């Protein structure tokens, strides 16, 4: 019985150590540099706006081209 209890204690300690270790790894990974500043001052939204504008322009171009071709197909 005693041996069993010791084993249990050891396993609990190992578990805690493993958990602590994963926490430490997570803390380390948050050190990775990301665009947090841009996010905090909202400038990332400027980038989104620029890309959305280009995308909207391309789609508008495609739609107009599509309409023109449809018209040509009808006239033929």
């Amino acid at each position, binding site marked *: 019985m005693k041996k069993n209890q010791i084993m249990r204690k050891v396993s609990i300690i190992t578990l805690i150590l493993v958990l602590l270790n994963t926490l430490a790894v997570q803390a380390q990974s948050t050190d*990775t540099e*990301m665009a947090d500043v841009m996010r905090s001052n909202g400038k*990332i939204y400027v*980038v989104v706006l620029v890309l959305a504008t280009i995308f909207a322009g391309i789609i508008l171009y495609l739609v107009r081209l*599509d*309409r023109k071709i*449809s018209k040509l*197909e009808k006239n*033929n």
Partner: protein
Amino acid sequence: MRYAWWKVICVLLVGFTVVGGLLLPVPRLDILNETIRNLYFHVPMWFTMILLFAGAFWYSIKYLRTNKLQDDIYAVQLTNTGIAFSIFGMLTGMEWAKFTWGSAWSNDPKELGTALSMLIYFAYIILRGGLKDEEKRAKISAVYNVFAFAMMIPLIFIIPRMVDSLHPGNGGNPAFKQYDLDKYMRMVFYPAVAGWFLLGLWIATLKIRLGLLNYKRENPFQFDFEKKSDNA
């Protein structure tokens, strides 16, 4: 506009990719940092290229079976659009590599394989430019297109996986293991692929329709004949 419903889906999906791809959270990884978001744009370029080349392969075989010049128009315009997407894929890849792997070109097996396969498809366009006779051009380029697609499979899918590569998913590197498990990245990546697929198909169909219009204008006689034979 023809078949507008899937074009609407395309706009919604790619629009979501642009906004969600920039704003939704991504895993914090060293070296990659925010560039991980390129995954939503760089990888779908290649996927779309493969889809378009597969379509061209299909129509090339179809041309060889039917000998209809319309099928040749499908094949060449799908290939043209695929080449455009391959150029986008290559440029975005080089830009991404410059800032993460250190240089725009590092002779990575996947880079070399795709470059070779792009050259093979460039040669398809040159081959077509060199042949004046329509029937001959269609037949020779259809055979060449089948060869080009058959070469692309080992160059892009097999050889890079047999050797060490900087690209994920090759030489024992994990493919999407690190980040594809992330639910936010999945939430953007799959719609992105579908959206870019549809955009590629949209552009290709526009070019095909223009090609067919030209063909119709140049061969009015044949169309009258076909109409008459349909009515008979």
